[in-house]
């Protein structure tokens, strides 16, 4: 079974989710749990750091789609950062850049959240 790991950090009012390994139909529920607990604790400003993610499948992409609306309704968002080229290609092909904000670096995304305060 492919390895996958989710780690959540707190940077001010923003929560940073770090993804590691392979995000597919089998590991997606773990990320869903993370999002559920963020929403339960009323954390709606989320930055997802893709630095250590090796692979994402359509089921993995579906997780962000399932939660982004809740975040936005509560004046938050899900922003993507530190993606390698292959992973970005998948997002790009699907048209995600038209729907989500992508940043080179995690700090830029956090800054964007803080500026909009």
């Amino acid at each position, binding site marked *: 079974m492919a390895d996958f790991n989710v780690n959540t950090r707190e940077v001010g009012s923003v929560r940073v989710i770090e993804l590691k390994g392979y995000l597919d*139909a089998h590991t997606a529920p773990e990320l869903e749990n993370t999002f559920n607990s963020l929403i339960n604790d009323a954390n709606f400003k989320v930055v997802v750091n893709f630095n250590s993610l090796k692979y994402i499948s*359509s*089921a993995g*992409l*579906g*997780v962000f*789609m*399932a939660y982004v*609306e809740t975040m936005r309704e509560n004046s938050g968002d899900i922003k993507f950062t530190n993606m390698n080229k*292959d992973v970005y290609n998948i997002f790009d*092909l*699907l*048209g*995600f850049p*038209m*729907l989500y904000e992508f940043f080179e670096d995690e700090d830029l995304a956090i800054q964007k959240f803080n500026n909009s305060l």
Partner: protein
Amino acid sequence: MSLPSSDLLNSRKFEIATALSLLLFLFRIVFSTVNSPLLLILNELLVLSSLYFWILYITNFINEKEHTPISLVLNAGILNAILFFIIAITTVLFDKLPEDEISFGFFEALILLLLGFITLGIATYIISGFSELMKLKQKRNPAKYFNSMMLFFLFSAILFAYSQFDNSLKSVDNAVYVVAICLITFNALRVSWIAFLVKKQKLQLLIISIVLIILFGFNFSFTMESDFFNQAMINFSPGIYRSLNLIMLYGVIYFVIIFFTALFHLPTAEAFDKKSEEISSLFDLSKLLTSVFDFKDLAENITSITTKVYNSDSAWLLTREGDEYKLSSVSGIGYMQAEKITESVLEKYDYNLSEVLIIDKKKIKFRVRNDIVSFNFDSMAIAPLKVHNQIEGFLFVARKSDSRFESEDKKAIAAYADYAAIALENAKLIKESLEKERLEKEMEVAREIQYKLLPNKIPSFKDLEISAVFIPAFEVGGDYYDFFEVGEKNLAFVVADVSGKGISAAFIMAEIKGIFESLSKTISQPKVLLNYANDIINQSLEKKYFVTAIYGIIDMQNGKLTFGRAGHTPLHLFRDNSVKRLRPNGIGLGLDHGNKFASTLEEMEIQLNNNDILILYSDGITEAQNGINEEFGYDKLDTIVTENWRKNASEISNEIIKNVTTFSKDKAQHDDITLVVFKSNFNNKQIEVG
């Protein structure tokens, strides 16, 4: 027993023994008194050989029945009692035999004969029983010693018989008699089977052996006196008389030894019983291992056996689930209590024990709802359940009072825990394989649905070669393609990929097919059609699902292709020796719930020329991986098309599939593969010119 002719068939032994006995009977009827050496020798030959064959037969008989030692002892006791009774009766009823042999009546002769045969029978059975007892729980084969004892019995019997006529060998007879007694003592020491009796049986044996010592003692002393019975026996056969005498002596010595052995074993009997119960519980557990496959049942069995075997008040079992240890079953303790105790004990060790841990005299306090409850125990043992050096769980055994767990218990509990770990692991593996089987069934259904949704016939045209290949992955990936002939002169096509896998993907596919099929009948513009499709999908699909698609329409009269792309892999167009990846803007269907989809979607128009090749595919092709996790990618695909453009559509398609499968031969196919190839024969250059 490996005596001569002991490998004869049982029925044959019986026949020989019966024949010899009959012969003896006839012999005795004819010669009621044996008074010449020749007759005596014949008589002894018959008596001793029939005794021998009866022993052989009876031994076999006892062997088959697998008697317990106690029942063998009891049988010997009963026979002895009968013998005692006979001796007593005959002594009371008859006087000494008259010295004058001639006054021997037919009636008396018959009684003597009867007595002889009964004694013969009893002697046979007692000897056989002893020989069985001897063999019990012996590591080395004791037959050698028993047989040599029997041999000396025979010598002694013969010498005694001979000395009836000739006194010169009296001293030899005495010497042999002494050797026989030595051998008796030596053989009688083989009583290790007593150790394996439970305490209750040892007590029984103690009492029985006292009775038997008395019985054998009486019978032995009777054979020494010269009363009716003895004279009758000597008259019947001096050999059997001596044998009987030796057997009785053997019985006395044997049971004296048994008495003392049982007596000395009594103090340790309880410990021995406990040990053997432990062993048998391990055996029970190994039987459970092969008969109970349900994890929950097994867990409950393990705790209940534990409490029973280790004489403890409570036991509970923790098993690993993911990164946590969960309480799987409890016995003799509440669920909450067990949980709290576990926490307070194991947290100190960070849930990591290398061996069985024993904690003595402790009071653990914890809160249950609003009450503070304390749990007292005298001794508690915690065994890690290890499989492949990983701790898969913990077994707790607690004694409230009674006694503490000793270091010896530690070993036993460790062995027991090892067994339990294996059994639980087995149950887990079986559960997983059942789950896998269920998944396989589900996938089978999903694949069947998928196949039924795909077109079973690909349309053919003069100006357009079409080839379509679909290879499903084990986990149905949700690929879909279709062709619709729209009106008289248009061909519409769709290649789509549903997110997710398995049965849910197959159901979404069915929905998508319905949407495209019905929309294509009324809407001829790909962009408009995809917009409608997005709206419908947004309403019907769960947020986490989406669909990527390319929808296009080809005017079959002039070769004009119009298409839109909703998040799908690009359309590759080969023309003039190079490949272009056409990627008009477009978000995947179901991704956007606002108006971004419609506002960003582009439509593309291409005039197909002669020898233009269109490649449409799902990401199962470009994301196919080789042994070192490299992806097949776009470039390889384009190279294959460029190198093979002269071939027809299905040959090009075969070439691509061949390359993809060769590339990914070291890895299981992860996603569905769909490939649609169009090769255009439209000759539009003329139209352009005209």
